[in-house]
């Protein structure tokens, strides 16, 4: 059987393991992308969110075989971008990272939202982040950070 081919953070990647393996496990164990967190393994918490062809997806609910030909972005790739720098600055200014476990998923959720709606309303931000659970912050600091990033990163999205 042919290996599964995909782009991982811009690098052409070929995976020869079982196509039924969870993308989450493959990213963490095979490619050591440990920013992708396992919070529930059943698609409820969003800690394992990655971008697949720009869409925010829970990687725990994806079989690696189904990403053949896709472009996958994790925080390891995204953190090298200017858009990340804008989000980083905004999250820092509101102290939005507490325990930090939801944060990689939250950052990618913010990217997925802002790439669709560069200047979202508060309701749109809350809706855009609602698939990613955070138990620490009460969400206000994260929502404010996304709002600030959208303002400060004018033109990036």
């Amino acid at each position, binding site marked *: 059987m042919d290996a599964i081919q995909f782009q991982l953070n811009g690098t052409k990647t070929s995976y020869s393991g079982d196509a039924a393996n969870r993308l989450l496990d493959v990213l963490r164990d095979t490619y050591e992308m440990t920013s992708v967190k396992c919070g529930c393994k059943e698609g409820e918490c969003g800690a394992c969110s990655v971008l697949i062809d720009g869409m925010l997806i829970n990687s725990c609910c994806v079989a690696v075989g189904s990403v053949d030909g896709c472009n996958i972005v994790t925080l390891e790739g995204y953190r090298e971008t200017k858009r990340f720098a804008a989000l980083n600055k905004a999250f820092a200014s509101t102290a939005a990272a507490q325990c930090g476990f939801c944060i990689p998923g939250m950052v990618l959720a913010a990217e997925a939202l802002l790439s669709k709606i560069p200047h979202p309303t508060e309701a749109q931000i809350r809706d855009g982040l609602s698939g990613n659970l955070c138990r620490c912050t*009460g*969400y206000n600091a994260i929502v404010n950070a996304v709002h600030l990033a959208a303002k400060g990163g004018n033109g990036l999205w």
Partner: protein
Amino acid sequence: MQNISQPVVKKDHESKITGRAIYVSDYHDDNILTGKFLRSTLAHAKLVSVDVPPLPDGYCYVDKTDVPGDNNVNIVKDDTPVFARDTVEYIGEPIGMIVGPEESEVDHILSKIKVSYEELEPVLDIRKADTVFFDYEFGKGDMEKAFAEADKIYEEEFTTGYQEQAYMEAQGMIAEPEKDGKMLIHGSLQCPYYIHGAIMRALACGPDQIHIKQDATGGAFGGKEDFPSILGCQVAVAAKKANAPVRCIFGRREDMEFTTKRHPSLCTYKVAVKDGHVTAMDIDVKFNGGAYTTLSAVVLQRGIICADGIYNIENLHVRGKALKTNTAPTGAYRGFGAPQTFFAVEMMMDHIAMDLGIDSLKFKELHMVKQGDATSTSGKYHFPVPVPAMLDEVDRVCDLRRKHEEYAKPQTGRYRRGMGISMHFHGAGFTGSGERDIIKAVCRLHKYPDGKVEILASNGEIGQGLLTTFPKIVAHELNLPLDQVTYTYPDTARVPDSGPTVASRSLMVVGELLRRCAIKLRSQWKDGEDQIVEEHFKEPDFVIPFYLDKFQGDAYPTYAWGVNAVEVEVDTYTGLTKILGAYGNFDVGTPIDYNIVMGQMEGGFLQGIGFASIEQMDYDNKGRIRNNSFTDYLIPTSADVPNMKCMLHVEEYPDGPYGAKGAGELPLVGVPAAYVEAVEQALGHGVKLSHVPFTAEDTLKVIAKEGL
């Protein structure tokens, strides 16, 4: 705002925002073996036999016979077994562990193990529980006289359910034998020295033979206070047997079902009222402790001390029991017994006011404590009680007094509104003389020849910001740039025991010790030299000594205060409650970083709203918890409470650093009563609600029953 309150970029921000922070599951090392538990499938049974199939090379089975020392985990008492003894006492109790290199093979072996049980009758209902773990009683005044002279006596029962901490990172630990014969145990945890003490006993080893290190920890909220002592002993025993590193990471369902959570409660209040005034309260508190005691003693102590709320009740009798049931042990969760009793007392006051036909807020204001008054345990409120001013501040943002009276009038139509108000305190630090007699915190500063200063303390960063706020205090006192002062995840091999990361104590108690260390270092500072200074906890002089046998004296040196208001709109067709606004005004003294403290307030407040409204967890008639996933146990999302506003009121505490008091737990404690009073107002018709969570289904039941 004081200079120290100005927000800074958190020192762990960069590692967390980039995803580089290493949590226990992130260590990539093929030599680490995977450990998974064989768990009891019955709530109460005698273990007859455990038949383990022949194991492939590299795999082993670990159980109580492998524990080199005491098969008991030292927590407050030591009744929790490392691995099950001759009986199992709850569904999920660890009987043994399979350890090996491949997780799939470990799972396969576990599925082949046959356990024979002799089933025993489980006790699941706390009303029927007859094993009393802890039984406390205290009071003051003349109860008989007060009840004899009462115009009216009110009696009511209140219940609260489980609450799961639902930290985003599940429990996980690694035990690694080291080359020198020692062992390192590290992972997701709050209290390194608790674990250190527990594992020393389980391995029967000296203090230098093991050390405990905290990894980046993905939330805790009390859930990683007691439980890691148990898991730590288990992985340490397994690593000892396998003579290899063993890692155990919980799945979400495993974590929700089998780890400690908030004690369900049943509180009965009997209240005497004379001339429109409460003259006596006779309070009976029961907490469901589950199968083993863990922290139930201290959770119960805090719960009963708060049982008369922020009111000056001259005649008081409180009896509290923690009872055994054959369910997963309950333990620490933010608030630590106080959310249960504050809910009960606030609702009781609301209901008496309703019956007397006066506004519940006005009724409560008549009874409110003030500076100099006696506490429930005949201690003293030594410092100003800022609640009246805090109420006014909340009133200004949400018009609560007017709305509270307006919504109390009869309403019709599909959508009806309510405004609920609650007031509460949280005593900072260990209950009673715990700080002085048990914890005896020590911390150090190490100044290096290059002028950099390292903080040596054992308190963990669990999201609450200690990696930043501790250095802020020391840098401020030494007049150094913040990047010259460091604090890293504690390792017991390197740091003294400054106590556990619990009881909203770290910043107030340890932070003040660090401030004193810094003053000492400043006075002795010699450029270019390596210097170490140390400070020990000293109880403030004003404290009235607390006697636990009598429950008398100052249970806490000072209190953080909270005023909560929640405005709701209930859809009487669907039972759904929309929160129109949730307002929390909190006095935690001086914030040592405005953003960090605000983050604590908002996060805790939302957890309280969850507890009050949607976080439903229960077990079936076999004792199995069914709400064991985020599908069946809902926690708030970013879309649920868009209008949540927290405020800070600052009443400085002279014995906390720059006036800071305990903060972490306060914002959760008062929400249930505010939320439920709001729903009660919206439903109207004199309904009296008495439990949390109060879900949409509960609302529909009341509507159907009362024909609203």
